[in-house]
């Protein structure tokens, strides 16, 4: 059985000492609540991912959050029409830090085959994206792989990444306060 590896620390009889950075990183990584923003066929693949065969719950994502306020990962799966863009943006703005964004599939990543006046050419035009999952649509394994990359980020990032200069600059680029 796969269990979470113990962080670097000092171990003795009856105690274990480590840093908050390590422990909180592990805790976050193994309890990420996704907010599925499913608009088309990638959403169907996500349903398969959540089902018993692929069992997304194994990665601490058992509990989907349909409110952005309690969500950690925004998973945008599907074509985002320009009329939908302000909605995605508002959902992102309502999420609390720390927050991550996954663009699942070709449409969310780049507009995909819909190179047209009415479709957003990738959600990175309106919100910062952490992970792009390629595919049209991607298989559940790919979605899981993308999610595991986010877990790695959550483990290894600074606990307050929102206070880093780089992150502030990124959000300023998108004019998100």
């Amino acid at each position, binding site marked *: 059985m796969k269990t979470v590896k113990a962080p670097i620390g000092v171990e003795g009889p009856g105690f274990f000492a480590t840093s908050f950075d390590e422990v909180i990183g592990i805790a976050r990584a193994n309890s990420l609540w996704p907010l599925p923003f499913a608009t088309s066929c990638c959403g169907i693949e996500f349903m398969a991912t959540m089902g018993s065969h692929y069992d997304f719950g194994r990665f601490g994502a058992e509990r989907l959050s349909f409110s952005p306020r309690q969500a950690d990962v925004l998973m945008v799966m599907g074509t985002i029409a*320009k*009329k939908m863009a302000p909605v995605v943006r508002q959902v992102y703005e309502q999420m609390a830090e720390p927050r991550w964004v996954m663009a699942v599939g070709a449409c969310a990543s*780049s507009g995909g085959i819909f190179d*047209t*006046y*009415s*479709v957003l*050419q990738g959600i990175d*035009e309106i919100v910062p994206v952490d992970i792009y999952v390629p595919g049209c649509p991607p298989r559940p394994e790919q979605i899981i792989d993308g999610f595991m990359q986010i877990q790695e980020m959550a483990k290894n990032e600074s606990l307050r990444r929102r206070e880093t200069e780089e992150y502030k600059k990124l959000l300023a680029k998108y004019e998100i306060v």
Partner: protein
Amino acid sequence: MTKISNNFLLEQLQSKFGDKILSYDEPHGMLTVVADPSINIEILEFLFQEPQLQYQFLTDVCGIHYPDQDLPLGVVYHLHSLANNHRVRFKFFLPDHNPHIRTASQLHAGANWMERETFDFYGIIFDGHPNLKRILNVDEMEVFPLRKEFPLEDPNRIDKQDKFFGR
């Protein structure tokens, strides 16, 4: 089975509206009539009320754009007589500058959204429409995207630049 023929309908229209019926055709067996846009509502009302005809179901309203024609913009009505199981198509051509035509929404309630869609994509103004504003596109859009002079592709897309394909 169809209870009336294309010829019968055409004769009815020609005897009623005379030379306002500009031309007609039968692509795939469906009567298609091009008529003067000033009488669009009179035609729809006549077809609706005439007991022998009863074209009371408006299947579709849409626009078309043929940039090379003298009157490049068109409004197309598809009508269905449920009583006679017969369909007919009408086309009214308009200039591309300031195109006006009267609304059918008082006669057919279903025309309301279809005319808004036609306005949204082609900029055809339906006089007398109760709420003529965009329905499918974003409200901030400044162009009428299905007119041929506007490019279909999104200008923000960068991965289709020629240099990535060695052109």
